């Protein structure tokens, strides 16, 4: 609207940023290493086909399980009013933004011999890995489907009931088809996350089971077989791009139907038997999601079998030789990096969102897909790509601290875009016309109309970006320098060291990180716009 130059600039900044800090590094590493022989190796000689197969089926299974666990909770949150509803919604989101290291640690503690769930005999393997994946992604289902569900007009179900449909029939014939797109969208996001799972697989699965992402790590980092790693990365990206393209298309369609939906909350207090259903679902979900967190926090105040705050005290001391700096510095680093990363992500992602939301079409859909791509690209590929691509002036950033927030912002941008695009799309274009007719020049229109209305979405995106950056592990692992570790890096270093106090410190830092991310999520909840299609 503010002329062609402005539009080009708005598109150029995010594309440039992603181009330099994502596309170029990834293309560099793949382009440099990929050979036809490696592709042949992957599929024929080296028997790596089973890795692709395992990646696929575990993602499908984990997605199904996540829906099974998440849909009842989504229903209860959407349809019933109960004390602490908002808190519950925030609480459900906490696992989603927790660092993998923390979650994997929590489940290791639960499943290990002597742990609360040791009787399952799931110490390491596919089962605990799936449980952790479900644990991570329940939030996606509850938030996306629950959000949509709470805006569905219950009168439609009433209409079906009046026309003679039973409760179940009305659900199947009316509610379910209407929920379909939201369920599909949530399922595709869960699928995306589980398809590219890294940390939980690496830490919880047995060595016989590897996803593509883990195999890329093994081949690239540990065996230095870059051609094979590049081939695997390519296979993974093709799958992810296909999925993202479908999702972008679906989202555009959903933005249209969104207006048909009454944007009002249809929740009410549960009556009679419903009370038991609500209590049961809430109880089970809270136990599943809260149990591991409680165990983790409990473990942090037990050092060597007795209750003690020694681990927390040790965090503040400068004498730790595991890190080069006091652990409290890692907290400061993490907060600083996350804040900077979130600022970058909001600016870059915000500009991109404006472009994507303003003109639907093939070009913007491609841009949308590109911006989502970092979610589905292996950290190894990006990390090695940084090393290979950013090695020349003016971009020799390899040893620079700024690379950490940049890498984190690349991962955080998709979350900003997903929060902001629906908000901007939902703005009535006549508001902009009205502002123009009242004398507002184009740039002023943006400032007076789009920005304030989308402000809450921006805030939500900013909060998610902070949470995601705080927990980011994969990419940070490659770019963080020893004198400026982040909390997840510090946790992994503590875990890698012998001694009860080191393990205790890992738990303590995990607990701190959990509390910080929880606080961020709760803050998001305070300002969140009730809208569709956001995470």
């Amino acid at each position, binding site marked *: 609207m503010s002329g062609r130059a402005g539009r080009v600039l708005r598109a150029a900044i995010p594309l440039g940023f992603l181009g330099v800090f994502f596309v170029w590094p990834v293309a560099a590493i793949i382009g440099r290493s990929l050979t036809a022989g490696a592709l042949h190796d992957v599929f024929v000689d080296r028997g790596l086909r089973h890795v692709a197969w395992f990646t696929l089926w575990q993602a499908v299974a984990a997605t199904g399980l996540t829906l099974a666990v998440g849909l009842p909770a989504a229903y209860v949150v959407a349809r019933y009013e109960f004390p602490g509803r908002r808190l519950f919604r925030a609480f459900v989101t906490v696992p989603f933004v927790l660092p993998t290291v923390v979650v994997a640690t929590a489940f290791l503690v639960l499943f290990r011999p002597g742990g609360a769930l040791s009787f399952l005999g799931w110490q390491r393997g596919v089962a605990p890995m799936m449980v952790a994946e479900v644990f991570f992604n329940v939030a996606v289902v509850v938030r996306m489907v629950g959000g949509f569900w709470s805006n569905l007009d219950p009168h439609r179900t009433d209409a079906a009931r009046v026309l003679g449909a039973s409760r179940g029939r009305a659900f199947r014939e009316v509610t379910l088809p209407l929920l379909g797109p939201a369920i599909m969208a949530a399922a595709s996001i869960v699928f995306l996350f589980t398809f590219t799972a890294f940390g939980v697989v690496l830490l919880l699965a047995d060595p016989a089971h590897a996803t593509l992402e883990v195999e890329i790590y093994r081949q690239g980092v540990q065996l230095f077989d870059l051609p094979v790693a590049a081939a695997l990365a390519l296979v993974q990206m093709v799958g992810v791009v296909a999925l993202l393209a479908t999702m972008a298309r679906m989202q555009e369609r959903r933005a249209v139907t969104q207006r048909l939906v009454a944007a009002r909350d249809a929740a009410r207090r549960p009556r009679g038997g419903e009370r038991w259903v609500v209590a049961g679902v809430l109880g089970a979900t809270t136990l599943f999601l809260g149990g591991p967190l409680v165990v983790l926090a409990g473990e942090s105040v037990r050092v060597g079998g007795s209750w003690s705050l020694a681990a927390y005290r040790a965090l503040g001391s400068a004498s730790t030789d595991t890190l080069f700096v006091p652990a409290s510095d890692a907290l400061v680093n993490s907060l600083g990096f996350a804040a900077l990363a979130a600022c970058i992500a909001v600016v870059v992602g915000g500009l991109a969102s404006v472009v994507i939301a303003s003109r639907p079409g093939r070009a913007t859909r491609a841009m949308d897909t590109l911006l989502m791509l970092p979610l589905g690209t292996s950290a190894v590929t990006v990390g090695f790509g940084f090393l290979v691509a950013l090695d020349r002036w003016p971009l020799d950033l390899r040893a620079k601290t700024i690379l950490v927030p940049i890498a984190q912002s690349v991962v955080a941008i998709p979350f900003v875009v997903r929060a902001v695009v629906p908000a901007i799309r939902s703005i*009535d274009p*006549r*508001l902009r*016309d*009205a*502002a*123009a*007719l*009242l*004398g*507002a*020049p*184009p740039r*002023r*229109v943006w400032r*007076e*109309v789009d920005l*304030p*209305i989308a*402000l809450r979405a921006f805030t939500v995106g900013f909060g998610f970006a902070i949470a995601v950056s705080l927990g980011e592990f994969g990419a940070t692992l490659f770019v963080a320098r020893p004198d400026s570790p982040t909390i997840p890096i510090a946790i992994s270093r503590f875990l890698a060291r012998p001694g009860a106090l080191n393990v205790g410190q890992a738990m303590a830092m995990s607990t701190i990180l959990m509390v910080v991310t929880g606080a961020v999520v709760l803050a998001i909840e305070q300002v969140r716009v009730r809208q569709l299609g956001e995470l």
Partner: protein
Amino acid sequence: MLAVERALVRFGTASAVDGVDLEVGAGETVAVLGPSGCGKTTLLRAIAGLQPLDAGQVTWNGDDLAGVPAHRRRFGLMFQEYALFPHRDVGGNVAFGLRMAGVNRTERDRRVGEVLDLVGLGALRDRRVAQLSGGEQQRVALARTLAVEPRLLMLDEPLGALDRPWRERLLGEFRELLDRTGLPAIYVTHDHDEAFALADRVVVMRAGRVVQAGPPADVWSRPADPWTAAFLGFAPPVPARCTAGGVETPWGVLPVGVSGDGRVQVVLRPDALRLDPSGPIAAKVSRCSFAGEHADLEVDAGGPAIRLRVPYRDAPDVGDIVALAVEPDGVLVYPAD
């Protein structure tokens, strides 16, 4: 003042506005009347500068406005469903244009109060717009448009979303307002009663084209074609033939001065027939419905049913045979298709 010449707006291959001419003189209120989808909103947007013209031009006092963006035209447009800013309260909405114009705060506050008083909403200044009723929102939208003292006022279906009592009340207020301010205005509506009640001149649009323009009385008494007549609520046309004594219709020969002979179509204006014991047409009352001080009759005089409105106290009973007299001026004759 405003002149639109041969305006053309295309969406893909379809023309939403197709060679429209329109003039609005000083202090004149022009109603653009047409069914939904006829291009009237697009025409407004083109005048406002929100929609570029594919051909033709919009001028103000002879100056071409092609290079003037919407925010510099100083035209006020009140949107259908108002487009109030949800993130600002009533005062904030009304003050918006003044802020854009750089009016200082004191002056702004004064002016906002003044305009809100004008529309009778002085007390609701700090209210959030979502908390207002439809009629109140409409007045806020009007106040917001008027606050900047536009040189042209455009209203897009301003009463469309309102309940009947509000509509009638606001229609009167609009009229008074337009008279008082002397603003040239374009009033877009699909409701001919509104258009006739308010406008100095009515422009009827159909499928992007102007089919008729003129004072309300002219448009009503002489619709340009059967479609316009039907749009104004007149009965559907019936086939007829010109004869020496008038036109021959299924109800007999109606005494209308026509020349030539051949096939034509006839539309009866609602005032074409009246109850008259000495009238030449005999008809049987098949339905009589109560409409306040009037009764709407449907009578059978052989041929298609005829509708007419009579004072309630004169209403016959269903089944009565009545005699009808013809008002020749009310018989509209159009060429056959």
